[in-house]
């Protein structure tokens, strides 16, 4: 027993040292694993890691491509809808001029019809409008007050002519936007409007202008029965 003790003492110390070394190594390794690096990873595992990174890289690249394509598509479609909107706006403006709901300006003529009481009747006015339209008049207004559109009617009244519900009194000035020369010829040709008015004792003066501004608007009633069908 005594001998055993003598031998046992250093061995016990050695065992303690070994345990201390173990604890030290555990702590060291523990701290090592908290660091985020790959120095402790084997080559094969690194290869696997690299492969999986490659795969996810490819997947993400494909995703980027798809999303860019979608973005481009959306951008194109928004551009084309902008174009469509622009075209619709232009068309709406054209239709507004045609329907008489917007003011218009451009080259044209002013025709003044004057004379005694019955020299210029509703029929004469209507004829002159038709004549001007034949010559390509795009916008027509009479006396700066009555815009002539598709629904406009002409009625003889006691004091003048009722055009689209407005009473106009002589002298009548018809302003028209269109090719000034053609329209002036249409009024003045032999046996035409000017001759007819002058036969009845009236006078017709035609003035070609570089710029005729028509601000009179037609009263467009809201359609009561008709609805767009398409």
């Amino acid at each position, binding site marked *: 027993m005594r001998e055993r003790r003598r031998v046992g003492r250093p061995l016990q110390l*050695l065992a303690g040292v*070994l345990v*201390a070394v173990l604890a*030290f*190594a555990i702590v060291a390794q523990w*701290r090592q694993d908290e660091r985020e690096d790959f120095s402790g990873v084997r080559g094969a595992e690194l290869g696997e890691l690299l492969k999986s990174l490659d795969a996810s890289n490819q997947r993400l690249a494909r995703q980027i491509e798809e999303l860019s394509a979608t973005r481009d598509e959306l951008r194109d479609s928004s551009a084309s809808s902008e174009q469509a909107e622009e075209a619709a706006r232009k068309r709406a403006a054209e239709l507004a001029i045609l329907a008489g709901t917007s003011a218009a300006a451009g080259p044209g003529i002013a025709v003044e019809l004057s004379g005694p009481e019955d020299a210029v009747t509703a029929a004469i006015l209507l004829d002159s409008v038709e004549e001007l339209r034949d010559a390509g008049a795009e916008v027509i207004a009479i006396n700066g007050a009555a815009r002539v559109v598709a629904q406009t009617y002409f009625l003889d009244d006691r004091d003048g002519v009722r055009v689209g519900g407005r009473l106009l009194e002589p002298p009548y000035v018809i302003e028209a936007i269109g090719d000034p020369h053609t329209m002036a010829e249409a009024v003045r040709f032999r046996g035409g409007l000017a001759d007819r008015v002058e036969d009845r004792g009236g006078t017709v003066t035609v003035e070609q202008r570089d710029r005729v501004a028509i601000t009179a608007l037609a009263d467009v009633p809201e359609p009561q029965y008709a609805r767009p069908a398409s």
Partner: protein
Amino acid sequence: MIPIIGLVVGIVAGFILQPTVPAPLEPYVPIAIIAALDAVVGAVRALGEKRFDDRVFVISFVSNVLIAAAMVYLGDQLGVGSQLSTGVIVVLGIRIFANAAAIRRQVFHA
């Protein structure tokens, strides 16, 4: 008593010195730790059975660590390092569990 002092000294030294594992030893330290733990758990079991021997503990500790490190080294040289270290860890884990079960039976009689 001495081993417990050693344990405390080792942990404290580890936290104070903040060591880093040298790169060449990096693959071997985890396996060596498991092997040493196996020896420690076996020693605790022997202590409980009143047949603990310093000599056996020291020799089994050192030889466990050396053999485990040698197997990992051999595996790395043969190109099966990760598989072999997994195998070593499994075997040592089984032994640790078995010893722990024996300790549990002694302490709790269950």
